[in-house]
């Protein structure tokens, strides 16, 4: 059959190249749940291999694998409803106004320093780091995170806002820290 062996070979190569990246993505989705990560990762491999012939553009295999991982995570959480325990306390309301130019300048300057960014993320709770990484690093819109993790959308928005405010507060408190 057309390209099947070629695609299987390419699939194996992609899994080797992007396996770690994919596992980190799932690890973030599962908020450090190693067991869930392994299960979703292996399910992603199985589904990927089974659906290989449906892949039309092989150069999109990486994003295709990530989409399967999202779908598998969603299935996992529908099954186990594990993530519904996200904290809802401390809701800070909407991020209704943007930062001032100076605040934003300091903020982005801090984020642009990899050591600082690592330090800042350490100050966040696991839940806040999870949302920050999924939203800002993996480009998952809040609605999609909400759908995959089976978390109330408004709760997620609150966590997002709280995370930004917390980062901003830390940066302000340590003014000049990032010069």
């Amino acid at each position, binding site marked *: *059959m*057309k390209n*099947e*062996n070629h695609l*299987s*070979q390419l*699939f*194996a190569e992609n*899994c*080797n190249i992007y*396996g*770690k*990246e994919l*596992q*980190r993505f799932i*690890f*973030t989705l599962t908020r*450090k749940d*190693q067991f869930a*990560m*392994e299960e979703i*990762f*292996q399910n992603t*491999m199985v589904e990927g*291999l089974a659906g290989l012939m449906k892949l*039309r553009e092989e150069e999109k295999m990486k994003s295709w694998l990530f989409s399967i991982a999202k779908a598998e995570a969603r299935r996992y959480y529908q099954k186990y409803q594990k993530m519904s325990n996200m904290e809802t306390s401390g809701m800070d309301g909407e*991020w*209704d*106004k*943007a*930062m001032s130019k100076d605040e*934003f300048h300091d*903020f*982005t300057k801090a*984020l*642009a*320093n*990899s050591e600082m*960014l*690592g330090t800042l*993320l*350490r100050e966040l709770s*696991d839940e806040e*780091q*999870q949302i*920050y*990484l999924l*939203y*800002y*690093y993996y*480009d998952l819109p809040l609605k999609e995170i909400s759908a995959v993790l089976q978390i109330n959308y408004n709760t997620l928005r609150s966590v997002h806002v709280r995370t*930004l405010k917390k980062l901003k507060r830390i940066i302000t408190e340590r003014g000049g820290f990032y010069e």
Partner: protein
Amino acid sequence: MNEHIKQDKEINRITKATLGSDLDDLDYFKDINYVEPKIKNEPHKKKHFKFSRFQMIASFMISLLLLSSVFAVLISNGSVSATKFKIEQQIVNIKNQFTGANLEFETKVEGDSIVVEIKTLDEIDKAADFFPELFIAKNIPDRYRLESLSITKNIDGTFNALYIFMTEAQQLLTINQISVSTDSSVSFVNISKEIETDKGTIYISENPFGDGANSSSYLTDAFIINVSGMISLEEMLPMLAD
């Protein structure tokens, strides 16, 4: 754009640029244990082949019979051409499971299309069975040999056919037949000559790329037939003659 959306995008950009592709330095991932993917990378296995040959044929015939019955119902319905096409694709898949590989003639399902490919003009009748209105290549200069003829049947019932011929010196000659509908709009450029025929018009473009190749487009009510290659006009016109 709303200011906080702009800022959001900027945070997104900077975060990705700062973290790069390796997140292992982040505390968040310090406890991750990477696992090896359990991939069984085996060559294509044909499943259910523990049947005897008789059982295989019987099973195939039953499948076809069932699908044919479904066909009859669906065709009479008249509004399910997409479903009918999907069934055609299933038939192709089933046939492919039960027939051995034929290097000269191949039918396969590709996405939303069914593709028939032949490698020799000896199989042209089979191609014409699949696409009854196929333009039959004829009067091809002797120096060209057929590399392939691919016919694609699309989900909307239209067909495209592409002949590829090649010389020993790797010079190409292509004939591409494309379905057109009456409401299509077609434009031709660099036309040096037009020839009216009973069935349509041949638009000729002489040496359009300055490399000595010629091309022509034969526009009929149902198709455009494009011929392009290192051939003279004297060689090209007999190819399009009825």
